[in-house]
């Protein structure tokens, strides 16, 4: 692969994946990063079973697809690199210079610029996924973690866990231009589809801030209450918004529940019991299923979105963290 002329590479890749697709009859697959096993589990969404487990770098956390879903980028935090996996044969084809301890990242709509949060160094590193060059390093707050890029590509957002801010990076200049102070230990940011609203979870604060993108001010703050669970244990981490604008799903960490929120009124509609210490979530293509990674119980919960019910839990590796579903 490596010795092929550069121009030929994408062609071979697409040929390979085409060959693979014809075999697999288009079943959706979920990729799960297992933080303490240094592996990725693959789940077949038809059978809801683990079909394969792949060795990757140390302490894999954030994972993300390239836009054509031919590649999976993996934050291998303790290997201090972002690995690029070729999804047609699951081989690692490159290691990107990510800066130290990459935890989460976001891919720009241009499919090239990867914005990586370097948790140990209070930096965001911008890497070109084609040339593998570091384009910029931007100083942010202590322990940056959450990363998101606005649908129009204008903003890259990073949350810093100890500084308690959402940092606004202008992607044209790669300069930090503003900060929004949120509650303690912000973990994750997520734009809505339109790109005018951002949801930022604060793990220790126990809240989710809804931020208006135009003013960069908090317009609403969500709190949660579950009977029989101490408020301190309700610790929002992952946030996932449905494309139709109806729902927001908030993973509540050690509360072992996912909150279902009306994304228009910001009211909590329901709490779904999942596995222990729920981290992150992803939808399948038609958004009828939502998968959650449950760190302590080492499994993945499958939520039927229409019925708002957990229909199965699937054992994966130790401390599953990130999840992405490929159509």
């Amino acid at each position, binding site marked *: 692969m490596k010795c092929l002329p550069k121009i030929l590479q994408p062609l071979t890749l697409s040929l390979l994946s085409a060959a693979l697709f014809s075999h697999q009859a288009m079943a959706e697959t979920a990729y799960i990063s297992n933080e303490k096993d240094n592996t990725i589990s693959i789940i077949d969404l038809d059978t809801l079973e683990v079909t394969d487990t792949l060795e990757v770098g140390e302490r894999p956390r954030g994972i993300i697809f390239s836009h054509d879903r031919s590649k999976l980028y993996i934050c291998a935090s303790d290997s201090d690199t972002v690995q690029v996996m070729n999804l047609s044969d699951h081989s690692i084809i490159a290691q990107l210079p990510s800066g130290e*301890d990459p935890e989460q990242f976001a891919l720009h709509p241009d499919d090239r610029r990867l914005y990586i949060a370097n*948790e*140990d160094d*209070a930096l965001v590193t911008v890497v070109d996924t084609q040339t593998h060059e570091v384009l910029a390093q931007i*100083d942010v*707050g*202590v*322990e940056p973690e959450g990363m998101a890029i606005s649908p129009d590509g204008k903003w890259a957002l990073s949350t*810093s*866990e*100890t*500084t*308690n*801010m959402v*940092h606004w990076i202008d992607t044209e200049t790669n300069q*930090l231009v503003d*900060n929004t*102070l949120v*509650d*303690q*230990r912000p973990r994750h940011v997520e734009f809505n589809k339109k790109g005018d609203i951002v949801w930022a979870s604060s*793990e*220790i*604060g*126990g809240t989710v801030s809804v931020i208006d993108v135009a003013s960069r001010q908090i317009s609403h703050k969500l709190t949660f209450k579950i009977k029989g669970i*101490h408020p*301190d*244990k309700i*610790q929002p981490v992952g946030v996932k918004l449905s494309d139709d604008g109806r729902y927001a799903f908030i993973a509540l960490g*050690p509360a072992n529940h996912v909150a279902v929120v009306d994304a228009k009124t910001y009211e909590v509609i329901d709490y779904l019991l999942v596995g222990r210490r729920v981290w992150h979530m992803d939808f399948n293509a038609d958004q009828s299923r939502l998968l959650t990674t449950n760190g302590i119980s080492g499994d993945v919960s499958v939520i039927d979105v229409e019925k708002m019910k957990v229909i199965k839990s699937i054992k994966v590796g130790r401390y599953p963290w990130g999840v992405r579903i490929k159509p």
Partner: protein
Amino acid sequence: MRTLKILLWALTGSLFSLSALANNQEIRIGYIAYHPHQGPVLSNLIPEPEDRGFSGAELGLKDNNTTGRFLKQHYTLLSELAETPEQVNQIAQQWLEDGLRLLITNLPKQELTELNKLATPYGAIIFNAGSYEDELRTEECLSNTLHTIPSRAMLTDALGQWSNARRLKRWLLIKGSEPEDLAYAEALKRSAKRFGLKIVEEKTWSFDTDLRRTAQRELPLFTQTDEYDLVVVADERGDFGEYVMYNTWYPRPVAGTQGLTPVAWHRVVEQWGAAQLQSRFEKNYQRWMNSIDYAAWAAVRTIGEAVTQTKTSDAETLFNFINSDQFQLAAFKGRKLNYRSWSGQLRQPIPLVQPRSLVAQPPLEGFLHPVTDLDTLGFDKPESNCKVSYTVN
């Protein structure tokens, strides 16, 4: 004309400096420690790092300044290790004269009390990041003072909860004869009572034991009493306690100042993002972060959070905010931390550690409290006579 010009210049100058002040807030913090000598001990101690506490405060400062950069705040830290108790007040006096109002200390109770007398008229805030004494949280309440280090009672209550949960209901208590050992033993006895544990016997390890035999040979006989489930040791400086494990008459676990140890912080704490704090610390100081470092770090971070939220460095405003229920600190212990309004004590989970792993982190499930289960550790409101507040007298 000329005078007018000068006046104008002076006016604009002062206006300018005012706005500069508003734009770039300068916050000065002083960290002072005094390490009294421990006296001769039986075991070959692994020495405590000289920079204990200092490095924790410095790391907290770095964290504050990274945040402060975005808010136009700048924090500076003055650090001094006093050679003598007298020097503590000399150094502090100088700082207070220079206008410093935020003090963090690693001092024994007496020196802390003296410093409190000196600093209160200046309206300074003091963080106790060194003294575990229970009296400071119950009887000898110090105004303007907050405690980031847990009290002994918090430590031993954590152990008591665990012991109860594991059904280790009979304790053999062995203590040294130093005042700290006696205080730790008192705390253990209080915790035993609180969590329904029985002390089958209380013994003092004294130097007049026949030392013609080694401690290893002496201890099995020394611990030959009525049967117990757990040996609890009160030997803070580690004189004989290190030899208790594996040398008890009955093959039973050991806990307290040695063995399974309740602490404010230890390298084995890695959940809840603590791995990040640990690796930041190790990268900067090439050693493990300990309880004294953690208490200093938490104090500096408390100041940082309070300044960020109140947008002022005024001592009175900060103290009242920190000691209110609005304050919250994310401090890598799995939940937000705040201060007990009556005693100024930082509520916090207590890790129970052995040298290479975390065993539990009380409060444990099932130990209930009407307000917060964190108050199942240490002196709760009705048990304390303290009502700390901010004064300038």
